[in-house]
């Protein structure tokens, strides 16, 4: 489904975050030259259509003590990757679960999951459990803990986004 130009403008208008002032939607409406009601209706509509998967407080887990953040990847036979992915996605504390392409020979893995925790050993233990429950004991696997974070912020979809690099705070 193609988004309307207005929907795209609206998403772009909030990509830096909802203003922290008493009537934030009115402020967003003002920027877009529309009404507060229109902004509220469109945001509700985008959530109903699952274009917006969630709308709310986006926390930085590292700052809250979640320092053991693992990207776990498996090489799952293609015919069962969807079934396996759904199974993993249903497990608690899996925040993301995607299928992505293999790029042999450097990258043989096609199923990705993110697991956040406060303690490395606990995260490794949970990964073992997930692997067992999803019947992936025989599948090639790698665990990529994050080390340094160089940048984390919301995505920018606006067409105005420039290709050229620029200095900005991480």
């Amino acid at each position: 489904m193609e988004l309307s130009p207005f929907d795209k403008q609206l998403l772009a208008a909030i990509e830096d975050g909802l203003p922290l002032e008493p009537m934030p939607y009115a402020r967003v409406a003002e920027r877009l030259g529309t009404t507060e009601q229109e902004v509220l209706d469109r945001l509700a509509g985008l959530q109903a259509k699952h274009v917006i998967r969630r709308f709310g407080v986006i926390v930085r887990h590292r700052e809250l003590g979640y320092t053991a953040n693992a990207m776990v990847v498996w090489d799952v036979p293609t015919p069962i990757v969807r079934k396996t992915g759904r199974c993993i996605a249903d497990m608690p504390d899996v925040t993301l679960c995607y299928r992505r392409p293999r790029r042999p020979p450097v990258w043989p893995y096609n199923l990705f999951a993110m697991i956040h925790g406060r303690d490395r050993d606990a995260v490794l233990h949970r990964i073992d459990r997930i692997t067992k429950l999803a019947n992936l004991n025989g599948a090639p696997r790698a665990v990529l803990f994050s080390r340094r974070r160089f940048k984390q912020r919301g995505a920018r979809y606006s067409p105005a986004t420039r290709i050229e690099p620029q200095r900005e705070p991480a």
Partner: protein
Amino acid sequence: MTELDAIDKRLLDEFQRGFPLAARPYAAIAEELGIEEDNVIDRLRALHDCGAVSRIGAIVAPQRTGWSTLAAMAVPPERLSAVANLVSEYPAVNHNYEREHRLNLWFVVTGPDEKFVEDILENIQSRTDIAVLDLPMIEAYQLDLGFPLQWN
């Protein structure tokens, strides 16, 4: 970071999704928490300033409004900081992490369409002379829906 109190924790935990769609959303939250609207705004601003809150915003399903990909590079350790900083300077890069693997630099590039994103990957590859692996999502089984925080 200063100690979070019980109200801060509830603000972080209970409003990760379903943020109030009402003219005065912070007043709605204030009522739920039994505090004043000003207090909610002040606390969220403080949590934002100290880094615990990235923003109040929308997580958009990938490939629904534009294009995004996960990219990876195997950067020689002595070049990692410089290459990571070069990558972070692109406004279209929103996540950029060092990870424990031979492919040690992982970042997400987002833009209005696939060509825009591909151009950036090519640009990074030619400026660094390091191959950039392009791993766009094929299917999502779980998107970021937030999760309950544990405070122990």
